[in-house]
């Protein structure tokens, strides 16, 4: 069975806590980014771009059996790592769960501290966009 958002969040936090050093945490993020499969090139169009990110982020979502699935890509590997986390947590969940979740893991792993510009890193834009997709399918 699909794990709940909270369960996945806890796993991510545990994973991050394995690392004492900032450097290892960011390495982990880079690995996640590298491993995230490329999006189908038909979605690499301006229509699928998330606005407000310094790097390009393409995001696409589809619904299957009442769950929402996300696919995304970016030209920045660290951004991809972040997207990978968001997808881990939100992809395959129900629209309501996605809309209502506060994504507390972001603060718990202090993700913001790895992003150099809080206002324009686009993390927020990505979340807003993912929730918007969920609303559209709800």
């Amino acid at each position, binding site marked *: 069975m699909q794990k709940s958002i909270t369960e996945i969040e806890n796993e991510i936090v545990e994973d991050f806590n394995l690392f004492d050093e900032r450097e290892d945490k960011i390495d982990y993020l880079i690995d996640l980014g590298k491993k995230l499969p490329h999006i189908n090139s038909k979605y690499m169009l301006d229509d699928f771009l998330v606005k407000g990110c310094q790097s390009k982020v393409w995001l696409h979502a589809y619904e299957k059996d009442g769950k929402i699935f996300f696919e995304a890509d970016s030209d920045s590997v660290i951004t991809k790592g972040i997207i990978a986390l968001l997808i881990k947590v939100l992809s395959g969940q129900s629209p309501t769960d996605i809309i209502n979740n506060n994504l507390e893991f972001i603060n718990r792993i202090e993700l913001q501290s790895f992003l*150099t*510009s*809080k*206002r*324009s890193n686009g993390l927020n834009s990505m979340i807003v966009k993912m929730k918007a997709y969920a609303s559209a399918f709800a």
Partner: protein
Amino acid sequence: MNDSIRAQFPILHQSVNGKPLIYFDNAATSQKPLAVINAIKDYYEQYNSNIHRGAHHLAQLATEKYENARTAVAQHINASEHEINFVRGTTEAVNLVATSYGRKFIKAGDEIIVSEMEHHSNIVPWQMLCEEKRATLRVIPINDAGEIIFEEYLKLLSEKTKIVSIAYISNAIGSIHPVKEVISEAHKVGAVVFIDGAQALPHKKVDVKDLDCDFLGFSGHKVFAGTGIGILYGKAELLEAMNPYMGGGEMIKSVSFAGTTYNDLPFKFEAGTPHIEGGISLGAAINYINEIGLDKIASYEDELLAYGTEKFLEVEGLRIVGTAKNKASVISFLVNNIHMNDIGILLNEQGIAIRIGHHCCQPLMDRLKIEGTCRASFAFYNTKEEIDATVNALKRIVKRLS
């Protein structure tokens, strides 16, 4: 108020001409508490950086502190953050509105109302606008006490009235205007109201929602922050409807020679690298006065005003200019046959700093048929003992010169 507050203001602890400094020029500019001075020092010693588009640690810190200051100001006057525009001071706030609102919305034949006792900064920008647009500047007259004559104001209002711009508190003689009533009457004829809060913010709580003012301007340097920073508050829908003021970095979304799109509030009106240190110092100042409490400040200053008024009147031949019922802690005065210049110089010899002249209110002085006044203006770090010393000095001066 007590010694622990004065201890926060390093500048107060010095001698001038061999006498302890008495600083009674607060309406011109206020002194700064250590909280503000240290905030400035920390900024430059620890995290100075350009902001907003920064991709590194210092830029992040500086952005956060600068935007926190905006939040502090917003909360302080009960506004939203995107309604808070950092400007250089009250003067720039008035000019910004006169230009970005006025040049867009004012047409020939429209009327703009100010009062007879405004600061030049709240007159000249409107004169310039009226000249350009062939609009008319109308002036609310005042009575001999230095209060606006409300019935005359009502007579000036008409559907031609597009802007009313008035100080909350007069810098020259301390009158507190009934701005809430001024605003609601202006709104009845569809005019927008700019409140010049330069002298109000240091002394009292200003709530833009409660006043329902459309714009409010004030200066950081008068409210215990550093120089070169100030605030223009505007209702979001008005700010959005206005033209941009200056063009440049920060205020744009994208630039190309084919066409440029402007940024959202509050960045729309903040072209170029902001006065980051100034914003942060203003945030620190706002936090500082809130820690003391504006109620406490206001009631202590009322006490100083009442005490000072009584004491100053003991000086032979002294008359107080400006005797509004509702008054801030400013005592403007003249002494029979003695030139204000001589009083200024001789008080300075005693280490006492007051201001003499027209206080940037020449039309008020013309109305009062005087060239200027001596002005002692009090802040919460002043004391009754300082008033006593000043009155004694004045008595000696009067004796010496008559």
